[in-house]
């Protein structure tokens, strides 16, 4: 082969390589963009669809956290009652022996 022919073949191969590099780079960038877009849809799309229920759940869970952190006086009544009962201890073995009550009316004030 002559020298001129070898140069044409080398130039064509270089062009082929460059075109392939450009093509695959383009494909790669496009693929990344598509992937980012999909990830964005996944990460944004689900909360939007469940926003109302999520807010409700959040408010409940937030309250639960706050109430647990608050002092006993701010707890619900049932919790205070439970505390009151534990503090007010009943004496052990209390048994009524004599029980005489004489009243002469069914009326109450």
């Amino acid at each position, binding site marked *: 082969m002559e020298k001129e022919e070898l140069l044409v073949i080398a130039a064509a191969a270089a062009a082929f390589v460059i075109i392939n590099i450009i093509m695959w780079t383009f494909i790669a960038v496009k693929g990344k963009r598509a992937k980012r877009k999909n990830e964005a849809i996944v990460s944004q799309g689900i909360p939007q669809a469940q926003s109302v229920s999520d807010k409700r759940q959040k408010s409940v869970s937030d309250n639960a956290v706050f109430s647990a952190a608050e002092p006993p006086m701010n707890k619900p009544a049932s919790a205070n009652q439970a505390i009151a009962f534990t503090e*007010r*201890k*009943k*004496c*052990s*073995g*209390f*048994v*009524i*022996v*004599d*029980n*005489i*009550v*004489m*009243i*002469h*009316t069914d*009326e*109450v*004030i």
Partner: protein
Amino acid sequence: MEYIVAADSDIGISKNVNQDSICVKTANFNEGKAALLLVCDGMGGLSKGELASATVVKSFSDWFDNELPYELDKWSWEKASQRVLNRLQQLNSKIVDYGKRLNIQIGTTATGIIAVNSQYMFFHVGDSRIYKISYKLRQLTEDHTFVNREIKRGTMTYEQAMRDPRRNALTQCVGVTGNINPDIKFGTIESGVNYLICSDGFRHVISDQEIFDNLSPRIITTRSSMKAKMRELIELVKQRNERDNISAVMFRAEL
């Protein structure tokens, strides 16, 4: 330690309603014994005096059943007396308000003993009495009556007081005036001593000597003898034409 109690009440010979109410309760708990003895002599128009006395008795009865078991765990006589005072004042307001609503005046005496083991506290409003009967008869309460106040002031003799038409007029009772000042005193229970709480109907026509002779701790030592002798005295009072209702309770501790 043993608490012995008995109670009796009678409508008497002339009234249509027994306006007296009484409450006698004892209880055992792991650290000892507790007792409540209360006599309330109701008074008022439209036969509502029994409602005033029943209101006070029911309130203290509920306290004994439902609140005392919790108070006994850390029993304090100071706190107990404050609670009794508050309860009497609340009951007073309740009965006063009821009377205002119905445009009637009703009220009741309230004389009681709360005992826990060997200590006791008595509270008193009106002219029912507590007697301690040991080797002698001793009246522990002072009547909240007009004549008793005048005797203490020196403006009336005992004989004048007995004839005075105002001898039954009370200076304070539960349910008539806005404020009451109950007497509250503390003491130590003496073993083998009898305590008597009675309405004025029980004691009007029998003497102190008769009370002592019949209820002396030397002869009255059991529940059955207490009941029998109190009934005997009630019948005696009726024979002597007492016109009021007649009520009495007795208490004795064997420590």
